[in-house]
């Protein structure tokens, strides 16, 4: 296999090297890639859409159809993790902690049920009490991370950022919560239903905006057609449309990041892990 791999690598590498011979030099401003479409985008985007961040404008407007499917890919990944890993059967070995005294109880029989109440708490097998410093720091940090995520989403039109980036930051703040406290805390606050509804909703906002444009008589995703629906400067309507789309993307990405994390670390049981 090693030799076989080496041969394939050499052949592919040779082909790619041969291909680079005729490529324009790196960073050459006159190369076809930097002149044909690129010049049009750079010179016309601000005029046509009022969005100074060209990457966002191309992403959410000119190539918005691509980005819609990209969001659908993210959704797929979340759903895939759920489909492949989610396991509703309770675990055989379960550990409970008596909260006032700290005594651990170990149940080997899945049939045994503990009397419900505030006295007992479900535990991880290799549970270590979280460090107070870590807990406190994270508790203070998480809201700021989330505010920053919202800023990144909202400011995607003007500065580097956008739905994907903001969504990932927001999702990671929730993952930080799971790491610094434990998975149970996260799952209790952010339920599975909430996450899956948000994941679908985020993409639906995107597709819905496009369909709304279609119903108003334009092409799919033609935000310019939404002008009568929104009380805004008609020249600015494309920027608003992009913002709406970015919010949808942000929601979907946030939800999916958390779904993937929860399912992979707990092997689909949503009870313990990392």
């Amino acid at each position: 296999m090693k030799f076989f791999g080496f041969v394939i690598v050499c052949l592919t590498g040779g082909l790619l090297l041969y291909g680079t011979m005729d490529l324009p030099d790196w960073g050459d401003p006159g190369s076809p890639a930097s002149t044909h479409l690129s010049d049009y985008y750079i010179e016309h985007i601000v005029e046509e859409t009022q969005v100074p961040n060209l990457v966002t404008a191309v992403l959410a407007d000119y190539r918005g159809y691509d980005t819609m499917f990209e969001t659908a890919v993210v959704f797929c990944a979340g759903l895939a993790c759920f489909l492949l890993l989610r396991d509703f059967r309770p675990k055989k070995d379960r550990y409970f902690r008596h909260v006032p005294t700290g005594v651990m109880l170990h149940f080997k029989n899945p049939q045994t049920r503990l009397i419900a109440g505030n006295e007992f708490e479900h535990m991880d097998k290799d549970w270590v009490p979280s460090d107070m410093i870590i807990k406190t720091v994270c508790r203070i940090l998480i809201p700021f991370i989330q505010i920053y995520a919202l800023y990144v989403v909202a400011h995607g039109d003007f500065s580097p950022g956008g739905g994907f980036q903001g969504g990932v930051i927001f999702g990671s703040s929730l993952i930080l919560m799971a790491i610094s406290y434990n998975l149970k805390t996260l799952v209790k606050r952010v339920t599975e239903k909430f996450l899956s509804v948000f994941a679908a909703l985020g993409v639906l906002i995107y597709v819905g905006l496009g369909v709304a444009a279609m119903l108003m008589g334009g092409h799919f995703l033609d935000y310019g057609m939404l002008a009568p629906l929104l009380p805004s400067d008609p020249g600015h309507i494309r920027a608003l449309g992009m913002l709406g789309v970015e919010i949808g993307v942000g929601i979907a990405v946030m939800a999916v990041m958390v779904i993937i994390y929860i399912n992979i670390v707990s092997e689909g049981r949503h009870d313990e892990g990392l």
Partner: protein
Amino acid sequence: MNNMPAILVLAPLLGAFFACLAAWIQKQLSYYIALAAMAVSCFAAVSVLTDVITSGTMQYRMAGWAPPMGIELRIDLLNAMVLVLISAIAFVNLVASVKNVEQEISDRAPSFYVMYLLFVVGLLGVTATGDLFNLYVLIEITSLTSYTLIALGDKDRAPLAALNYIFIGVIGASFYLLGVGYLYITTGSLNMADVAVILKGIQGSSAVLTAFILCILGVWIKMALFPLHVWLPNAYAFAPVGFARVVAPLMTKVMVYVMVRLMVTVFGLEYIFETLNLADAVVWLAVTAILAGAFTALFQKDLKKMLAYIIVCEIGYMVGGAWLGNSLGMTGAILHILNDGLMTFALFLAVGNIIYMRRQTAFSDLSGLFAAMPWTMAGFVLAGLSIIGVPPTCGFFSKWYLVLGAFEAGAYHFAAALIISSLVCAVLFFKVFEICFFEADSGAGDHNPAKVITEAPVSMLASLGLVSVAIIAAGIYAGTIVDTIILPFLQ
């Protein structure tokens, strides 16, 4: 303005997300939403096909931007035909497979339907789009959904098969993406029509050649052409039936469509057959693929695996036909996309019925099937005859064009491979028929299933019947299809 091209792709996409939300209210709802979405998509596809036949190529500008700046859907006769094939098969399969899904993955059925719809969205989008990069994104959607759905099959082996498929699929998609990158760096555009115009001026460039090889190689990996087919048999054999039925006839055919599209629309046939001297080598590769597929199928002991190798063999037909370099061969290849889709679908429908009743598809478990499931076996026999290439069925006509094309191009080895593989397929299918016809003396003796007719549910049989009729109809109207769709496209 006609929104049908967009609706065609969007109906299943919207359906997927509504089905996901509806599953939290009522699990059954998601199935009906999926059914409705596919029906809308199917209707839109048919209406697009009639429009394209009467008034020529349709262009749909996404977000209203003119083509090289924005993404366009560009639907000509070839895509329109493939779109109808995809949406119809996906719709019929949804009707046929409810019971299989209930039997195999009942606890996750709503998620299965959501994934299924997204898979179909990917296929439809790949076929409809006129943008090279958009094609990549949609290929990734189809791949991602098929990895997942394949892994839901056989508990022990499906995840491994799916993981292997991921590794090979990622290499394929990445090669395609790299090819698009090389095209972009030399042309500065991503729109297929625009790229084709610019490419005419720079045909000698080594970067274009590399782009061509990378794109075609990527598509070959995805369609499982012979030496690159290692992922296919396991993946298709261990997938859940409800999904295998749609992935087996559609996935590879859509990739063949992508290859034809790249050859005809983007790079241009003159570039491929006059500037490059690869055609002979590829036809030889196709010959190897046909023979290897057919002979490996001979050694299989399981019906699903056998069919998977037959798919490998059929891919050889289409690739070879497309690379013969004449219009007869290309006609045969395109017609075979349609016909092979129908035949494979019928075979897998029959296999699904057998699995639903018997849970097994090893040859040793098939005895007495003709007595127990006469209607299913009738459909199976018809589809089998079509694969072999017996005249009234559609399989004969595409093979006929392929053989004619082979003679015109002087590629006698390809014609010989076609005939040999037909003979091997005949041997294969008659072996299966024989096993199914005669009752095994031992083993099944206790409960004696042959005496009682244990036929699959009506919904499954009706779908199989419909597809069988379509196979015959595609055979009878093969001339009309060629005259109204394929020849105008090739001119």
